[in-house]
């Protein structure tokens, strides 16, 4: 234990806390500032991604009419929108917000550390992400426009310039993703090393809050799965620029290789996005049920098992790719298997709520919204994961509905769970609860109006990435569903204005947040709101129990913080 009983190196510098705009706001090494930087970038990209989605939905509902502010768009532009919407949402919204912002903010605070173990590496990671953002943004403005080969970038479409007409846009897309990967690799190494070496005295691994576990497993998944895609992306870039043969069948290559390399990463990636959201919900449910979380250790094991399984399910994205059909059965089996640990976690969430003293504050509403919507998404996943069914629904809007019910649940329902819960800690102000309720209900309703009809559209045969559904006679009678979906999407976008208004008003004039407005047990609530540089004063917390000691029988309060020393009465000194 020699390494970590010494004070964190940063403490020695407490007397020299950085001052000045550049050191405190721009190039800060403080994990809380870096979290804000990730959050700001992620929110900015969310606006872009959302507007792209709005434009796409307009085109689908009223094809070949002028989209407001954009005019009429053709299929090439539509392809570019589809591509960038997906790329932005996964890599520039979900990851920076769920992992970059919340991982950075929460991990040191929840383990009782003063900062990450490598603060300068942390700063480098967010600045690398900013560079990735700049490159991705630039790709919109180069001749030929931004990437348009789908967020999945399949060759030959992505490998030959003449197929998309996009040259620099796709090259910059690859570069931006490479920088983004580097940024999150640095972050992941930081999170894992910090949690492994800087936990407060008494904070054993099984006393860590579940959200920390989820962030760590997500970091491991990313770290171990991104490598083959980096290799594949290098190959794609070289095919485009140097004329290499990797994905060119006429030269001995094979486009199918990309699909394997992409999805080997792509599947763990969706769990990289999902796990932090599960973590937020698992933190909020006990607090607003005033009950311990159900089956803590089993949730940890289920997460680890799901993470491991996520490496052997990837080809369920490729059932209709022309890959060897003998791969279909094993990958269907593993895909159905992976639903088991996630189902356990969902049941554990429900069991946590069971007979709890439920408080319907906004964080809890969002958590319940996640739970219900994710169950819907999870159920459709079972159809998608079985090869015989998937042969019919792959590449249709049924898949789009599935992954929006799961991913939107994770990123937005889960993300807002985290935002509403930890906003007081991050910014020192309470968010207005009534606007919070309004934001939730509008989002929930509009989300379902947008995506539920897409199940029907998919089953009826509407395929993805088509700019004008009316060109297919069979889809013309279903166009009403597309219109309904678009109205839902417009509502969804507008509903977010409620949130923006809430944030602005709260930051300027909201009620000042106490240290622990939710009466929660975990360590971040023992620091002031917001925590100062180095998080705590002279003494770091010491942990005496797990994070979910709510409503203990016979106790006066229905909560018991992790760092409160045990009662002395009736005990021999030295026992805990």
């Amino acid at each position, binding site marked *: 234990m020699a390494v970590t009983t010494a004070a964190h190196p940063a403490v020695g510098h407490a007397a020299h806390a950085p001052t000045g705009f550049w050191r405190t706001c721009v190039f800060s090494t403080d994990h809380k500032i870096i979290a804000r930087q990730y959050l700001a970038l992620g929110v900015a990209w969310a606006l872009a991604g959302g507007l792209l989605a709005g434009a796409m939905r307009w085109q689908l509902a009223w094809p070949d009419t002028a989209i407001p502010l954009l005019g009429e768009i053709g299929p090439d532009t539509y392809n570019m929108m589809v591509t960038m919407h997906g790329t932005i949402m996964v890599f520039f919204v979900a990851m920076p917000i769920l992992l970059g912002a919340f991982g950075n903010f929460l991990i040191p605070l929840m383990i009782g550390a003063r900062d990450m173990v490598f603060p300068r590496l942390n700063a480098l990671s967010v600045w690398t992400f900013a560079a990735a953002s700049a490159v991705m943004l630039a790709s919109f403005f180069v001749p030929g426009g931004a990437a348009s080969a789908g967020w999945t970038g399949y060759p030959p479409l992505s490998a030959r310039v003449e197929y998309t007409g996009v040259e620099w846009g796709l090259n910059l897309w690859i570069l931006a993703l490479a920088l983004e990967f580097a940024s999150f690799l640095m972050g992941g190494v930081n999170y894992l090393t910090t949690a492994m070496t800087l936990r407060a005295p008494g904070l054993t691994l099984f006393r860590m809050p579940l959200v920390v576990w989820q962030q760590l497993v997500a970091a491991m998944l990313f770290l171990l799965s991104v490598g*083959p895609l980096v290799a594949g992306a290098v190959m794609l870039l070289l095919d485009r620029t140097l004329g290499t043969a990797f994905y060119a069948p006429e030269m001995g290559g094979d486009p199918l290789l990309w699909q394997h390399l992409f999805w080997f990463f792509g599947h763990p990636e969706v769990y990289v996005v999902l796990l932090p959201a599960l973590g937020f919900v698992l933190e909020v449910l006990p607090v607003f049920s005033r009950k311990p979380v159900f089956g803590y250790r089993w949730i940890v094991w289920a997460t680890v098992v799901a993470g491991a399984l996520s490496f052997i399910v990837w080809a369920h994205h490729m059932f209709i790719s022309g890959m060897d059909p003998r791969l279909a059965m094993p990958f269907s089996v593993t895909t159905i298997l992976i639903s088991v640990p996630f189902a356990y976690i969902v049941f554990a969430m429900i069991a946590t709520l069971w007979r709890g003293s439920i408080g319907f504050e906004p964080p809890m509403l969002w958590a319940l919204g996640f739970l219900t919507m994710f169950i819907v998404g999870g159920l459709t996943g079972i159809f998608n994961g079985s090869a015989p069914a998937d042969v019919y629904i792959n590449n249709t809007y049924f898949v789009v509905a599935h992954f929006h019910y799961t991913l939107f649940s994770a990123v937005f329902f889960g993300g807002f769970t985290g935002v509403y819960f930890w906003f007081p800690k991050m910014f020192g102000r309470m968010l207005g609860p009534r606007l919070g309720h309004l934001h939730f209900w509008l989002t929930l309703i509009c989300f379902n109006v947008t995506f539920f009809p897409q199940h029907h559209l998919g089953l009826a045969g509407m395929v993805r990435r088509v700019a004008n559904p009316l060109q297919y006679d069979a889809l013309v009678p279903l166009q009403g569903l597309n219109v309904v979906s678009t109205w839902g999407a417009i509502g969804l976008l507008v509903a977010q204005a409620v949130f923006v208004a809430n944030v602005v008003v709260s930051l300027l004039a909201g009620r000042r947040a106490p240290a622990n407005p939710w009466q929660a047990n975990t360590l971040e609530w023992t620091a002031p709101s917001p925590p100062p540089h180095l998080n705590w004063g002279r003494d770091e917390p010491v942990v005496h129990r797990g994070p979910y000691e709510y409503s203990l029988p016979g106790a006066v309060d229905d909560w018991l913080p992790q760092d409160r020393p045990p009662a002395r009465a009736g005990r021999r000194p030295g026992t805990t």
Partner: protein
Amino acid sequence: MSSARLHPNYTAVWLWLLALLGVGLAASLLPGGRVVALAVVFATAFVKALLVALNFMHLRFESRVIYAIALAPLVFAAILALALFPDFVWHGPPR
């Protein structure tokens, strides 16, 4: 903070590495069965890699956590390689 107060004999390890390199080169250059030559070449490569990993990289003396971190990616990379066999080595099911 260093992990090993114990040091293997690095010079001996280096000499073994050179010897194994020689054996591999010899196997590839000398006439003989191609399969045998390849087997020798790759066997010596594996042994060299193990020698470097266990001794120079100190895996022999590190905690099980480090072992796990080193081993997990090898397992996953192997899974990927094996899963690619049906499509790229066997070119699909027999027709």
